């Protein structure tokens, strides 16, 4: 869509999501390096940078890093040497990147460093809703909180320039509603964007002009008008709002809906930065003289005078107490500390409308009646609504793995990890979900605790392929060195599925779509010293169950401790392992063979067991002569491509019609197997297959007691997965 530009250098505009808008702003600002690890809601920024650099024929180095710390330090290295660098991650990823951040902020940069850390209020797809702004303030780094995709593009551009001019790292903190909202973003030529911060009291919404397309341009020029100055700040009103980010945008819409847009002034906060060095000394002074530190000194002057100009202030911000804490003036403020704003969860439209209605009524600014009755909920009470909790996709290889894990040892402890496969929690095959790589370390900790208590329980940890590279390597090596007794299932679907199919190191594919060296998981695992390693296709559920049991037998036959004498010979042993395993895999992994380096190895649905590769070295005569094997975790690589990435081969497709035909209504396939393509028809009391979702993988046949496959499994491994868990 071309738009004629009156005065500026804007050439074009198009609809895009907030993350692409950020990418556009960064590219226009002339960045030279961008590194990221995918994580919702940040994952689309780097692909956006790749797209715009190609369009603009820019020389920008772009890479998916193996984790956020690598991304941050690579970008920091480039910044130290004079380049404009950015790194992107989700909010919990910033924790992974922090070691360099804490010290790095003081290093003299020749270039610029912008960190984009996307927050997830709610949280919608994270473990916590931690607020990036808190860390930014802790380290005294400026942080920008965009209120819309268009503003995010402007702030991204501005942040690069600010960082370059002032030689300090800068953080942009969009929330997921900004990252994933879509609107028209004006495109400027490289270096041609004009940005002024929209901080301060905002003008009321103007009526839509008769020529609506002009209103987009009007809005933009008003950005410049409003800068810095706070026109309404001088008059004393009863009640005002201070808001930042998406909460500002929602508050503006709510006030317009309630007819209060001209009654209640709103101060928008875009940038937060605390000059810690100066202020800290004065705080210490205060402490020494016995008075409490004056937090109001930390508030920017314009914000301070706005707060002074009203009797009461409502502070709306996501997700923690930051602006509210900086303002310090607790008597004046409606916020989280006095319970007017919820202490956790997203500030949705309805939440903000309720808060504003409540405060407006309480301050007698206006009278707002509550709109909602419960009539709709009452009317829907008797209506059947198909439940749709988050589930692994139909045909997902993870489901088969989890099912096999539960069938092998229903009473096991299952430490889980971060990815699609966290959803295994509802199948009872994920007991913990802490952080990236946490499954391996927790399993090691459980192992120690159970050994101490003399209470041996199978421990079966799971981790995805991308997560294994991200945070599993050091953890697994540690467990090997200390001979921890657990089974680790590496669920290798050849991609980073949850965040949108970003390539893993194993594929050798870069973010640009070119090929580089591959790193095979089995090479890494054997390189770390793991002795029990099996690679299998999780679709072969019987083989996976028997392999897990075999792994447990292996663990129980290990010596629980190694004497000094033995540990000397371990060194010999290790070198011999390298000799033995270095042969075939290394040769192929060094060639840039691209995606063929990752190949789901199943070829025949009925003969899948043939694909098991026995890579264990413990039973080879040479090693057993040297020392008894030195124990440590047993690793199973469950390898099959993500169902969204690769269609089933014709020979893998099964006739699943008998699931419907022979159904006795026992619901085992629904309660234990949880495939979204299986729906229980309440009228006929039988299972129905949803043809739109079913991929005919046939894995449900193992969960059905009326099928040959299910019967066989039942005979061998007992009735199902629902045995009571002993904890």
């Amino acid at each position, binding site marked *: *869509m071309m738009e004629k530009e009156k005065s500026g250098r804007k050439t074009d505009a198009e*609809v895009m999501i907030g993350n692409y808008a950020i990418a556009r702003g960064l590219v226009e600002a002339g960045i030279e390096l961008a590194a990221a690890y995918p994580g919702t809601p940040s994952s689309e920024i780097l692909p956006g940078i790749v797209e715009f650099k190609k369009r603009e024929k820019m020389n920008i180095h772009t890479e998916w890093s193996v984790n956020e710390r690598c991304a941050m330090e690579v970008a920091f290295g480039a910044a130290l040497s004079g380049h404009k660098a950015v790194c992107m991650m989700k909010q919990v990823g910033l924790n992974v990147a922090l070691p360099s951040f804490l010290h790095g902020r003081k290093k003299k940069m020749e270039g610029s460093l912008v960190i984009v850390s996307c927050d997830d209020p709610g949280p*919608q*797809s994270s473990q916590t809703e931690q607020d990036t702004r808190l860390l930014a303030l802790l380290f005294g780094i400026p942080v920008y909180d965009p*209120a*819309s*995709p268009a503003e995010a593009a402007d702030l991204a551009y501005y942040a690069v320039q600010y960082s370059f001019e002032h030689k300090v790292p800068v953080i942009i903190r969009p929330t997921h*509603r900004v990252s*994933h*909202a*879509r*609107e*028209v973003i004006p495109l400027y030529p490289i270096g041609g964007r004009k940005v002024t911060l929209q901080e301060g009291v905002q003008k009321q*919404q*103007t009526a*839509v002009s008769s*020529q*609506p*397309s002009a*209103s*987009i341009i009007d809005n933009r020029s008003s950005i410049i008008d409003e800068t810095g100055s706070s026109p309404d700040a001088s008059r004393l009103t009863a009640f005002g709002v201070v808001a930042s980010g*998406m909460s*500002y*945008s*929602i508050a*503006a*819409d*709510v006030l317009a*809906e309630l007819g209060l847009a001209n009654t209640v002034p709103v101060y928008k906060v875009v940038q937060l930065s605390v000059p810690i060095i100066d202020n800290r000394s004065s705080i210490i002074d205060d402490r020494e003289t016995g008075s409490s530190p004056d937090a109001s000194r930390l508030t920017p002057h314009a914000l301070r005078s706005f707060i002074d100009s009203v009797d009461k202030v409502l502070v709306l911000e996501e997700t923690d107490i930051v602006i509210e804490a900086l303002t310090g003036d607790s008597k004046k403020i409606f916020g989280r500390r006095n319970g007017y704003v919820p202490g956790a969860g997203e500030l*949705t*439209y*309805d939440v903000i*409308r309720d808060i504003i209605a409540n405060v407006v009524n309480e301050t007698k600014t206006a009278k707002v009646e509550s*709109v*909602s009755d419960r*009539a*709709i*909920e009452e*009317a*829907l*009470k*008797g*209506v059947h*609504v*198909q439940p*749709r909790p*988050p*589930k692994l*996709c*139909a045909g997902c290889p993870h489901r088969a793995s989890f099912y096999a894990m539960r069938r092998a040892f229903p009473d096991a402890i299952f430490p889980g990890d971060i990815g*699609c496969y966290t*959803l295994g929690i509802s199948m009872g095959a994920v007991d913990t979900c802490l952080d990236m790589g946490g499954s391996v370390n927790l399993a090691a900790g459980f192992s120690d605790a159970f050994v101490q208590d003399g209470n041996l329980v199978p421990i079966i940890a799971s981790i995805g392929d991308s997560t294994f590279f991200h945070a599993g390597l050091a953890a697994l090596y540690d467990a090997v060195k200390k001979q921890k007794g657990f089974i680790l299932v590496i669920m290798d679907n050849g991609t980073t*599925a*949850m965040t949108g199919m970003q390539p893993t190191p194993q594929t050798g594919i870069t973010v640009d779509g070119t090929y580089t060296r591959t790193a095979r998981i089995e090479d890494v695992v054997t390189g770390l010293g793991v002795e029990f390693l099996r690679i299998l296709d999780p679709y072969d559920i019987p083989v996976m169950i028997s392999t897990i049991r075999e792994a447990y037998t292996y663990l129980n036959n290990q010596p629980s401790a190694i004497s000094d004498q033995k540990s000397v010979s371990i060194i010999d042993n290790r070198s011999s392992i390298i000799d033995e395993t270095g042969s075939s895999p290394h040769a192929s992994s060094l060639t840039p063979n691209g995606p063929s380096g990752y190949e789901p190895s199943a070829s025949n649905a009925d003969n899948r067991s043939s694909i098991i590769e026995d890579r264990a070295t413990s039973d080879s005569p040479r090693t057993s002569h040297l020392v008894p094997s030195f124990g440590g975790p047993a690793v199973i690589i469950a390898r099959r491509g993500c169902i*969204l990435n690769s269609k089933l081969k014709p020979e893998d497709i099964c006739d699943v019609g008998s699931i419907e035909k022979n159904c006795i209504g026992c619901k085992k396939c629904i309660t234990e197997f949880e495939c*979204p*393509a299986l729906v229980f028809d309440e009228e006929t009391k039988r299972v129905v297959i*949803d043809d*739109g*979702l079913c991929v005919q993988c046939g894995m449900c046949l193992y969960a059905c007691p009326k099928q040959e496959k299910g019967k066989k499994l039942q005979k061998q491994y007992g009735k199902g997965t629902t045995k009571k868990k002993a904890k």
Partner: protein
Amino acid sequence: MKLEILCAGIGGRGVLLASTILIEAAIAAGLKASASDEYGMSQRGGSVVSLVKIGDFKSPLIGRENAGILLSFEESEFYRNLTFLKRDGRVIVNTHKDALPGEVERLLKERNIRAYLVDGDGIAKQKGMIKASNIAILGYFSSLRIAPYSYENIKQTIVEKTKGKFLEKNLEIFEAGFRQAEGRDQ
């Protein structure tokens, strides 16, 4: 003008494409438009909601009983999102049924909400592309002529936004959805 539309359906069935067509058509008509999507953790088969706001709004989010139009590409998702629909609003439900449950019919009547039941799956299946039922619903929606939308500008946007081999099928299904609406009992 201001218009808030909630599109609801399940993953893999074109909810986001429908909302893309709606905002692009509004922008082509010279209006400000934004969208916000919620698709949770499931990749396929989970609930998907896309909020479309046309006009002078700052945020892309929709509050309870604020949406003027609810486009439900699947029946259960209609019930799940009914709280967003305002009095006097309109809803299109993709269902093969002829009537909604009595309680719901009464509620809609009492709130002066007009509901249109359309077998979008049936229309799309007949044309050999069940996954394009979203386009059939858009065809039906275009017949309501709710500003800024018309048969012409939605069709034009589909032409611009869908790729080569699907375009012909999409237009056929769009047309069929539109014609079904024209023939409906008034």
